């Protein structure tokens, strides 16, 4: 089961992503335990975890935040496909970086991306889901980490 101290890996990964990719730090709120339905925003990039641990890591964000993030990355394509690409890449980068701490047996999938529909998010038995709130400029997104 995911321990609270292990969340630091994902908080640090999220911080690093915004500092480097967006060139503007995000404010990370206090993580909390998810109860009930997942809080899904306009676009969601989901990584399945297997190997030593099982579960999912997903990044969910509003379109307005992703648009500004793309602008900061010097992108000029703000299409639906670019939004989908970006949420997948954010989830992939933060999950992949977690292998620094979780090791080689923390196996990540290619991203699954959801938009405009309610995603079916698997919840393995024994997993606890934590929500990491992300505030960047005037926007808010969430990283959800649910691991055995």
């Amino acid at each position, binding site marked *: 089961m995911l321990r609270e101290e292990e969340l630091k890996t994902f908080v640090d990964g999220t911080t*690093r*992503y915004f500092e*480097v*990719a967006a060139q503007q730090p995000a404010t990370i709120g206090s993580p909390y335990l998810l109860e009930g339905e997942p809080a899904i925003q306009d676009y969601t990039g989901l990584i399945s975890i297997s190997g030593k641990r099982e579960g999912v890591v997903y990044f969910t964000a509003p379109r307005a935040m992703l648009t500004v993030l*793309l602008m900061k*990355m*010097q*992108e000029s*394509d703000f299409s639906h*496909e*670019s939004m989908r*690409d*970006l949420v*997948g*890449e954010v989830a*992939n*980068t*933060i*999950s*992949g*970086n977690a*292998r*620094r701490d979780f*090791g*080689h047996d*923390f196996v*990540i*999938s*290619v991203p699954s991306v959801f938009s405009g529909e309610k995603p079916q998010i698997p919840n393995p038995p024994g997993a606890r889901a934590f929500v990491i709130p992300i505030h960047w400029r005037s926007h808010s997104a969430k990283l959800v980490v649910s691991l055995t």
Partner: protein
Amino acid sequence: MSSAPDTHAGRMVRLLIVDDSNIVRRRIERSQHFDDLEVVGTAANGIEALELARRTDPDLVTMDLTMPQMDGIECITQLVRMKPEVRILVISALADKATAVEAMERGANGFLSKPFTDRQLNEAIAELMY
């Protein structure tokens, strides 16, 4: 970073970019600052990369690892078999040492972790060009 490389006898270095993200592919293409580097193709997975490598004969390849259909590790293995002289820079979110070591053992020449700055990208490319 605009002088012609001695190792390539003044000709353009041919770069193939491999990543399943359009955004990352465009970012690499846009952010590299070398006058003597020519992007000859971009691919979204290992299978496309091998096909493009046959057709475009790249000198340098930037290679993602986590990709659908054929991942980067398998692609590196086949690419090196096909074209042993190619230089491969892995650009991946997989940030553990074991992954970097495995990629190098398969034939990669450099490793850059995502997310990366323009400066880090250009330094990593320069190391393999010159």
